[in-house]
C-alpha cells in the first residue's frame, strides 16, 4: 500500500474513532445538553465520512440540515424542558441491561454478517460534479417521491405547529 493509502486509512480511522466516541458520549452522557453537543459532534463525523465517500453534496447538506436545523431544534427542546432534568438520579432506565445485551448480540451478528458476505467493489474513482446529475435525477426519476416528501414536510410543519402551540 502506498503512502497516500496509509494516510487516508489513518484519516479514516481518526474520523471513525471520533464519530464513535461522540456517538458513545451522546448515549451515555448524563447531562442532556452535553449529550446534544456530542450529537453535533457525531453529525460532523458522519459528514466527514460522507466526504471520504466523495459525496460532498450530502456532507454539506448533513451540516446544513442535521447541525443547522435538527441539532438546533433538539438543543431548543432541551432548553425548554431543562429545569426538571436537574435532579434526576439516573439517565438510564431500568431495562438498560437487557438493551445492552440485545445491542451487543445485534452488533456481533451484524459484524459477522458483514465479514461473511463477499462484497463486490465495482466503484471506480470518479471525481466529477455530481450535483447536476443529482438535480436531474430528483426532478425526473424521483419526481413523485420528491413531491410526496415536500408534502410530508408541509404536513410536519403544520403538525408541529399545531401540537406545540399553547
Amino acid at each position, binding site marked *: 500500500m*502506498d503512502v497516500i493509502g496509509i494516510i487516508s486509512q489513518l484519516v479514516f480511522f481518526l474520523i471513525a474513532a471520533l464519530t464513535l466516541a461522540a456517538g458513545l458520549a451522546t448515549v451515555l452522557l448524563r447531562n442532556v*445538553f452535553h449529550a446534544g453537543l456530542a450529537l453535533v459532534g457525531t453529525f460532523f463525523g458522519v459528514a466527514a465520512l460522507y466526504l471520504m465517500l466523495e459525496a460532498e453534496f450530502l456532507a*454539506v447538506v448533513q451540516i*446544513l440540515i442535521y*447541525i*443547522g*436545523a435538527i441539532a438546533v431544534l433538539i438543543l431548543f427542546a432541551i432548553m425548554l424542558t431543562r429545569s426538571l432534568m436537574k435532579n434526576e438520579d439516573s439517565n438510564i432506565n431500568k431495562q438498560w441491561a437487557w438493551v445492552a445485551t440485545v445491542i451487543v448480540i445485534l452488533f456481533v451478528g451484524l459484524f459477522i454478517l458483514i465479514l461473511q458476505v463477499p462484497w463486490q467493489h465495482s466503484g471506480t474513482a470518479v471525481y466529477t460534479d455530481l450535483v447536476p446529475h443529482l438535480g436531474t435525477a430528483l426532478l425526473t426519476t424521483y419526481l413523485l417521491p420528491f413531491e410526496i416528501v415536500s408534502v410530508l414536510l408541509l404536513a410536519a410543519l403544520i403538525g408541529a405547529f399545531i401540537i406545540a402551540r399553547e
Partner: protein
Amino acid sequence: MDIWSFITNPFVSIYELIRGGLSGLLTSVGVPDEIVRLIVFLVMGGIVVTVLLIVAPVMMMYMTWLERKLVARMQDRIGPNRAGPFGLLVPIADMIKFLTKEDIVPEGVDGPVHFLAPIVVVIPVILSFAVIQFGVGMGAVDLNLALLYLMAMGSVATIGVFMAGFGSHNKFALIGGMRAAAQIISYEIPQILAVAVIVLLAGSISLTGIIKAQSGLFGLGWFIFYLPVGPIAFFIFLLAATAEINRVPFDLPEAESELVAGYHTEYSGMKFGLFYLAEFLNTFLISAVGASLFFGGWQGPFVQQVPVLGIVYFFAKTIVLIGVQLWFRGTLPRLRVDQLMNFGWKRLVPATLALILFTASFLWAYRLFNQFLTGLGG
C-alpha cells in the same frame, strides 16, 4: 514569467513561484512524486491559511476603528483621535487590552461548554473564508458547492451561541442565546432563498461560477443591475444577513438595555475578544458574500488585463457594504422580538418565495424567447 504579468498579478505570481520552486527542489532531491505532491499541498495550504489568519484579524481590527469613526461622525462626534494619527492605533491598544485582561470564569458555569463556546463561534466564520474569492484566482478553495457551504457554516455558529447561552449559568445569557438561535434559524430561510434567486440567475452554486456569470458589460454585468429582481433580492439578502449575524437593528440577543450583553454576558478577556472577532468577521464575511453575489465580486473594468485590480475592486465593494451596515447601526432603532419574528416569517419569507417564482418564470419565458430568436436566425 515576464515582469508585466508579475506586476499585474503579484500575489498569484508569488504563490506560483513558491510552489514551483518547492516542488522542483523536492523532485531534484529525489523524493517520490506522490510524496512531493503531498508535501507541496500541505505547505502551500499552510501558507494560504496563515495569510488568511493574519489578514482576517487585521481586517477586523480596522473595521472596529472604522465603526467607531463612522458612528461617531453620524452622532456628531469626532471619534478616536488620541492613539496615533486619526486614532489609527486604537485597535492595537484594544487588542493589547483584550490579551492582558483577566479571564474571569464565574462560579456555576458549565466548564467545558463555557470554555468551548467562543471557539465554536469563531471557527465556522474562519472556515467560511476558505471559499471567498478575493481576486482573480485568489481563493483558498474553488469549491463547486461554495454557496451551500457558506450557508452550512453560517448555521453551525448557532451551536456556539447556544453553548455560550447555556453554559454561562445566567438567565440573561440564556435568553440571549435562545433569542439568537431563534433569530438565526428564522432568518436563515429568507437568506438562503434570496441567494437561490442569484443561483437561478447564474445557473451555478460555485462562487467563481457566479462571479464569472457577472462578467458581461465590460465587467459591470452585476446581478444587482438585473431589474427588478437584483435589487429586491439584494435588499432581502442584506436584511436577512444582518439579522443572522445579530447586528443593529436586529441585535436583540445582545440588547444591552434588556439583557446586559446577551449570550456573552459572562465572558471577559480574550474569550469576549473572540466573540467580538466573530461578530466583525461575520460582518466582513456577509459583505464579501454580498459583494460577490450582487456586485460582481472582483469583476470590474480592465480586470482581465490587470488582474491585481480585482483585489482592489473586491475590497472596495466589501468596504462599501460594511459601511452600509455601519450606517444601519448609526441610524436605526432596535426591533421588538415579536416584530422581528413577524417581519421574518410573514414578510421576508413570502416575499422571497414570490421573487423566486417570478425569477424562474421570467427565466423560462426568456429561454423561450431565446429559442424564438434562434429560430429567427435559422
